[in-house]
């Protein structure tokens, strides 16, 4: 089932909260920490504002993986939005697993504004995990039939 072509590169969407993880991504940039170029970042005010539909749509539009990253527990600029996100995310994960989406495709992490290195590491790991899983076909219309060049 898994189509592992040598040149295939996974496509990943990352939803990052403005205050911590997006700042962590900035710090990775300033510090020139290199990581794979597979991730497209969407900035949101708080991980708590991420609607499960965003993640589903991303998968449906052809993302092979989705990363959601927010502040560490206790760091949330909006007090507890990250915890809400976490709770909601776990529910969504159950649903996704039920639908047959591999657990590694959609990941959650905490990255603070001081963790540039960690951000790069998270992106590396997510990219590797998703690469390992191969192209996502589940949610794409006619997905199983669709080949990837």
């Amino acid at each position, binding site marked *: 089932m898994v189509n592992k072509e040598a040149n295939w590169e996974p*496509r990943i*969407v990352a939803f990052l909260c*403005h*205050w*911590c993880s*997006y*700042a962590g*991504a*900035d*710090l*990775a*940039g*300033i*510090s*020139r*920490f*290199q*990581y794979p*170029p597979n991730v*497209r*970042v*969407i*900035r*949101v*005010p*708080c991980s*708590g*504002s*991420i*609607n*499960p*539909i*965003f993640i589903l*749509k*991303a998968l449906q*539009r*052809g*993302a092979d993986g989705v990363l959601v990253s927010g*502040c*560490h527990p*206790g*760091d949330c*600029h*909006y*007090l*507890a*939005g990250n915890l*809400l*996100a976490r709770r*909601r995310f776990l529910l969504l994960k159950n649903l996704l697993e039920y639908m047959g989406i591999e657990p590694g495709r959609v990941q959650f992490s905490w990255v*603070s*504004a*001081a*963790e*540039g*290195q*960690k951000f*790069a590491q998270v992106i590396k790991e997510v990219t590797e995990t998703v690469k390992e899983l191969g192209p996502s076909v589940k949610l794409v219309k006619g997905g199983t039939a669709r080949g990837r060049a």
Partner: protein
Amino acid sequence: MAADRKNKVGAALVVGGGIAGMQASLDLAESGFYVYLVEKSPSIGGTMARLDKTFPTNDCAMCILSPKLVECGRHLNIESLTNAEVLDIEGTEGQFKVKIRQNPRYIDLSKCTGCGDCEKACPVRVKNQYEYGLGERKAVFRPFPQAYPNAFSIEKKDRALCTVSCPAGVHAQGYVALIRDGKFKEAVRLVKRNNPLPAICGRVCHHPCEASCKRGLIDDPIAICHLKRFIADYEYERGVCVDPEPKPSRGVKVAVVGSGPAGLTCAYDLALEGFDVTVFEALPVAGGMLTVGIPPYRLPKDVIRAEIGAIERLGVEIRCNTALGRDVSLSDLKAQGYRAVFIAVGAHREQRLGIEGEDAAGVLSGVDFLREMNLQKPVKVGESVLVIGGGNVAIDAARSALRLGAKKVTILYRRSRAEMPANEHEVEEAQREGIEIQFLTAPHRVIAENGVARGLECVRMRLGKPDASGRRRPEPIPGSLFTVAGDTIISAIGQVPDLSFADEAPEITDRGRWLKADPDTLETSVPGVFAGGDAVTGPATVVEAVAAGKRAAESILRYLEGRDLREDRVFDKPHMVVGDVPKERAREARKKWPTLPLSERLSGFAEVELPYTAEQAVAEASRCLDCGVCSECLECEAACRANAVMHDDEPVIREIEVGAVVLCPGFEAFDPSPLTQYGYGKYKNVVTSLEFERILSASGPYEGHVVRPSDHRTPKRIAFVQCIGSRDVKEAESYCSSVCCMYAIKEAVIAKEHVSGDLDITIFFMDMRAYGKDFEKYYNRAREEHGVRFVRAKVYGVEEDRSNQNLRVRFTHEDGHMDTEEFDMVVLSVGMRPKADTVELAKRVGLHLDEHNYVLSSGVAAVATSTPGIFVSGAFAGPKDIPETVMEASAAAAAVGSVLAPERFTRVSAKQYPKERDVRNKRPRIGVFVCHCGINIGGVVRVPEIVEYARTLPYVVYAEENLYTCSQDTQDKIKALIEEHDLNRIVVASCSPRTHEPLFQQTIREAGLNPYLFEMANIRDQCSWVHMHEPAAATRKAKDLVAMAVAKAARLEPLKRHKVPVIQKAMVIGGGPAGMTAALGFADQGYPVYLVEREDSLGGNLKKLAKSLEGTDYKKLLSELVDRVSNNELVTVYTGAEIEAIDGFVGNFKTTLSVRGEKVSFEHGAVVVATGGKEYEPTEYLYGTDDRVMTQTQLEQRLAKGALPGRRVVMIQCVGSREPERPYCSRVCCGQAVKNALDILAADPSAEVTVLYRDMRTYGLKEDYYRAAREAGVTFIRYDDQAKPVVQALDGRLTVRVHDAVSGCDAEMDADCVVLGAAIVPHDDSKAVAQLLKVPVNDDRFFLEAHVKLRPVDFATDGVFVAGLAHAPKTVSESISQAMAAVGRAVTVISKESIEAGGIVASVIENRCTGCGACEQLCVFSAIRVNPDKKVAEVESAVCKGCGSCAANCRCGAIVLRGFTEEQILAEVAALPW
């Protein structure tokens, strides 16, 4: 009064840009005062910016700090003056004059974009102070990535001595630094800025730079000269050195007479300036003495030709065989259109010996001999050559003679070796080659036969008194004549110029002997004619000639431009400030360069000195000490595309006027190096707690890996040693530094988290002072959950095991037995001290300081100083943690507000914007601006391709690329383009919206666009910088990010921020000291306030207390407060009042009271909760059953009445505190016990007072009282919470039994009274008030602030603030400070007539809402509620923070978060070309 008003200034000075300074500035600016924030370092942020996590919540310090940095930095009414110091403050409250020195940053803040290109180019690495010296940084640096201003700065200690001592001003440290970095081409280019002859000078310069090099104080000076020769050769050989670009021709002719180093340099400089320069040379070849004076074994001809060739390539014409006076005259030159002349004819005529026989054949002049030889004319020498003289000409002649076939060469010099003017190295080489030097020998007569020289008759000399040159004058020894045989005699005793040309203008000579010119400007008495070099000064060195050429060029430039020849020109060397030689540098001798073997030398004129290899050169350059820090290599200038580097920046003194001053300079950490027993500075693995903080930090030197500095190995055992520099009367400070216990626990816990499981941590301590809110729980968790080991012991020594760099910690347990344990690392928990420079400032200003140099408070609150109008906050008023510091900052802002209230809004400005254009229902017209960011983006991402791509995206009508989109000129351009192309959405693809979105939003607002019609694509931080080696992938990703931004932009809508009026009144709940202080605080600032008290009288706990530990009379304080509150017409007091309801939101509250059965309601804009707390009523220790058992407060009341409870007093601490049902420390009881004990002993010195305690928590300056109590004879016995004391009353005898945890013995004592240090508990109704206000309380029912660290008096609900015991146990003084802080914060709300609401907030689509209320439960800010009538949710936009949790959670999709709507985000997803 009116006069007063007029004179006050509605601005404040805040000194210190740490967290206190930032908070004070923000509170003041938000309350209507203009703020000057003066910070000494290049960035605001202070110590907090260097912390990893903060206790007790383990928040990331930078995460919570950096939004404040941006807010403070960008505030319209806060002027941040970084790199600045306050020199003096004069005047009185309301009107101070402040003198500020703005130190040079060397970077233009208005131009620096913070891109970091300069940092990359900089070759100088120094210890990184931000990392406490653990890592390195460049000389051009930004302290930390989130710094504000987001700009670089250069650290410069004047100039290095090598640079200063170079006559030509060559940046010696600069090229050495560049060589170290392997940047050889850049190094030559740098030398050539000041000296066009690097290869020549690299061989023959007398290098004063090396004589002054500070490395010489350690071992040998850097081989600066030879390094220069290396780079010049290296580059010439490879032909890669690019000639500098001359300015366009001015069509102005200048003549230079003489093509020696002076003439060539002058020609070079003037050619670069665009002049047409002709050099006239009398000899058939160019180069002057370089060519005809110096033999080729020292300076090969091709080297000279190469450097002259480079000058000719600039357009300089050299006419040989054209002598001034012979072939051309000064008047000819004028007639030929030369507008200025520089005469540098040198000194080519040998002085005569003035002895008998000197005209004999075989007697040669040194310069003539060398010239003939160098011009390759046939020169013959005899077998035995005598050379007279001790200068370089003599040595050159002697060594040349040897190479021309002489068998024996002897130099005769009349003084000794020490006085010899020739280069020492040359003398040594001459001797190695077999030349004999006879010192103290002078020629007396040439012995000639038939007119042919056969030898010299010489006389022996001795040295007499020093002459005018400072050298001892040689005197002949009578009767010492002797003869030396020789068939060739070369005289080289000095040269004079040939001035025969000057017959037409004798006035330019000094009696026909030398040319005469102004020593500074080199002008002669003939206008337009300048002179310099050997012809003026007498024979000198090459580099001095180069210097003269430069000086002449500058004068000629000024002369021809009609400018003053002297203005702004420095002729004397600048003053030097260079620090000591670093002790830690290991000795390392200079690298030897190769020389030609002796056997190969004398057969010809092959060059003797050979260059370094590249490796040798880099190694030699690496020995440089970087004395000046910045080396002025000017690479940053070349790298900066924004032209922001200004190496000639100067300090500026500025005077400002302010009405009040807040000092918050922070502290300096105790330096443990003098306490040698701990091995700090000696053992690498002994670090301070602040260094360890950086080791823990993810952005620190080890990227958050806990490793030890010696070998970067992960430690297995770490010891923390507490109280380093604190509680140490003998060697450091006597007081407790308040914060070390907690930060040590925090660092221990975080370290264990980082190393996960395999790390043992031991904290050696005396008392664990976890006295703050929720600190005790943190301590318990560290012990019980994280397994941190706490050992009560005094550490007295740390020693290193040299074999593995482990550390043996020797310590004494509590009971006195000694012990040793081994650790991998030791962390010293260092204390706080006031900063030396601010202490000086405080003294200068006349503030009263205590014996530790902390500012003495003049009032109950800590913020008032002895000088009215000057306030203090933070660690300069005593050691304290971040929340208290922040609290005091807001309190200081309130204090300033009281002083300057009438001047509110007089100095501040509000930005005015044009009317917004209506874009509704208009098709999006998007403009896309793609930034190169110098080369930061453009160097990786193919920017033009992005622009082309952007043009193909839907709705994009305009796209362009910019060098820097954020530069001021691009901002103007964007505004013009919005107009020109009718753009209604703007996308910038550059860097981070976190730093730059506000700037661009402001720009488009200035062009009439709603600021929310803006979107950014971060193609730098997310593309070019993180995919540097994958340009194709980075470009592809950048395209995607731009497509996403454009897709979102097309769906952006203008967001309105509307004004909500504010009721400029406040309510304070609680009439204790905090409540009364708060009420007065509002009234003092001119705002009406309602003070609500449930009891029938004001005063709260203050009624029960007599005085503070420090001696403040609480009775007096109470009556003063009650009086002032009762008599202030702005304060409306309701006693006996119950609150029935509080409705509304920030700015618009409505409260209903029931006052003795009557209903009262009023409106207000802010609320301060000061409902207080009370003393716990003990059930332990016979309290309530035996009258002799009382609480500390009851004792205090008795003592105040003068009634001693007896002679034998036993105090038991921690009654009701630090217990499972109340797991917190009550903070005040230890101080109260010490206070009462001291009082008892003062009244009856024979009394016996015993204090049974668990930890004595006399934090901060209270420690001094604890010591006083011990010294006064109070007995302190520590008990363990597992073995509590037992109080018994038997037969009227009251006894206390205690197990002494220190000695392990049981003790029983009789007591006349037992005093219980009872806990502080919140008031019973705190929960009810919390529910009325919808604000939270913690597990202990104390009110829970919005953020423990940075918002200590705010609630998450805007407009509601907390102070006093309602928040947590604290002293009266701390309650009062906090009350002032609450006022300071609340005034930021009620000083405004209206507040802005809206923007990025949630909004409800009513017809989708079912009124389920899920959102209402979710919103921690209570911003959304279901309207019970309409059954739909409603958002109070003034309260909504825009987090979007409600929108994501709404099961009907009825809530949208403006600016981040589902449609917008899904459009971003859909824009991905997948």
